[in-house]
């Protein structure tokens, strides 16, 4: 494995270290490390969607048009009430089957329908085969919908915390409704929303460990596989049940993400709070 290293270095490391170095960089382990991209993608894309849905939901909740307000309120209350795991497996399945149902109405013939009898999908041509990229997008959308409901409440509260007089001043100087919203209201909203949104971000990070429920071979699934008792033809038993060691690596990983996130949110907070935080400290 490490034949490319010069002999003196191999002697210095010793056979044991070389063996474990080789073991931890074998194909399966490399796949494990690479599966981190799914977690990162779901977290980043999921949170972008959550903030988007949050802004949308909060705007609906703030609307003066009663039906819009109702939709915003229902979204925030119902989705927050449903267990995340349940919604996480429900939404992709429901979406997949709806697409198949629409496909079936286009492609199925009476003969193919009969051949499939009562099974799903209605006919083989209407079968939508999903692989990791599709599941990943659907997982991110699910995360976005679930945590967008939390973000809706956070942003709704933050929008109300922006001093009314400053919005009035913006209107008095001839700004249009959308200029007031984007240049003053939403820009100042962040400072009140960020503490709550950092909580939502942490929840999303934790929820990325659910990706394996959607058949995505993510870091959790691989830790499970790699931790199982392991035999190699050449050396026999490599290790027995080591799952706890692999899970421990995940623990450390998630704690590191938390620490880095806190630093990141501090930077964001300083940006959003320029001028405003000084005011509330006075």
């Amino acid at each position: 494995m490490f034949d490319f290293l010069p002999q003196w270095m191999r002697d210095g490391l010793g056979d044991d270290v070389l063996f474990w170095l080789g073991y931890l960089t074998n194909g399966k382990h490399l796949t494990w490390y690479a599966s981190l991209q799914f977690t990162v993608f779901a977290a980043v894309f999921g949170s972008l969607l959550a903030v988007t849905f949050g802004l949308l939901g909060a705007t609906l909740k703030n609307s003066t048009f009663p039906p819009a307000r109702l939709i915003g309120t229902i979204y925030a209350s119902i989705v927050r009430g449903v267990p995340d795991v349940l919604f996480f497996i429900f939404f992709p399945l429901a979406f997949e089957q709806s697409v198949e149902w629409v496909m079936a109405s286009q492609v199925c013939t009476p003969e193919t329908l009969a051949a499939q009898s009562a099974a799903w999908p209605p006919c083989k041509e209407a079968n939508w085969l999903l692989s990791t990229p599709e599941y990943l997008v659907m997982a991110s959308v699910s995360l976005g919908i679930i945590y967008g409901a939390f973000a809706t409440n956070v942003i709704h509260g933050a929008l109300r915390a922006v001093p009314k007089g400053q919005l009035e001043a913006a209107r008095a100087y001839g700004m249009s409704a959308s200029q007031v919203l984007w240049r003053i209201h939403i820009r100042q909203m962040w400072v009140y929303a960020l503490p709550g949104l950092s909580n939502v971000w942490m929840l999303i990070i934790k929820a990325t460990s659910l990706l394996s429920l959607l058949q995505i071979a993510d870091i959790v699934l691989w830790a499970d596989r790699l931790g199982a008792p392991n035999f190699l033809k050449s050396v026999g038993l490599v290790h027995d049940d080591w799952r706890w060691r692999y899970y421990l690596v995940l623990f450390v990983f998630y704690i590191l993400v938390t620490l880095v996130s806190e630093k990141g949110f501090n930077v964001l907070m300083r940006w959003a709070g320029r001028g405003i935080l000084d005011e509330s400290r006075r």
Partner: protein
Amino acid sequence: MTQSAPETASKPNVVSIRDLHKSFGELEVLKGISFDAREGEVVALIGSSGSGKSTLLRCINMLEVPNQGTVAIDGEEIRLRGKGHDRRIGDERQIHRIRSELGMVFQSFNLWAHMTILENVMEAPLVVQKRPRPEVEAEALAMLAKVGIREKAGAYPAQLSGGQQQRAAIARALCINPRVMLFDEPTSALDPELEVEVLRVIKILADEGRTMVLVTHDMEFARSVSDRVIFLHQGLIEEEGTPDQVFGATRSPRLKQFLNAANHE
């Protein structure tokens, strides 16, 4: 006093208000008010709290939409639709355009907290009036120099004293080259020692011949700065005239009572 009464009498009306009514729920705050402010004229609105003077001022730029009556700026009537409590702005484009030429100064300053003082002053000229940045920046700095806080251009509102914030707010109003300056109790939120610096700036503007409508509780200031004083009582104009007439030869017993109370504050 900025200009003698005959001097402004021949000038065109910048603000024309006709038969203005405004209620909040059951409470009728304005009960039919008409007045004009001519070009270069300084009109002071006085009256006890609840007399409707702030509401009247806020109707000029439609921060409050009157239930009845009309407001015209430079002869152009602000379009409204609906009736009574359902009355609302009829033409968004028109109101944005008209508002962009009315410089409002609020009691609580209402500077945008996330922008520096310079950004506050440049915001409306850049974003609403869409003027070129170099021109706006030069003018904004000149306005800040004029109100005496040029060195605070890079500071945030929260880092300034109340008096400095209000002067920044005045610079913000000046930088849009307003047809009218609207002052809503500009010194009520300030300590007396800070009040002076703001009043001095407003006095300079009045002497320049700017058209201004000013709500104030400071009788001495109203007397020294305005061309015409309007005394509001329970939503109606009770007395109106030059400062000398209103303060020197008071006719209405209610105004006499009000001035007595104000003198004993």
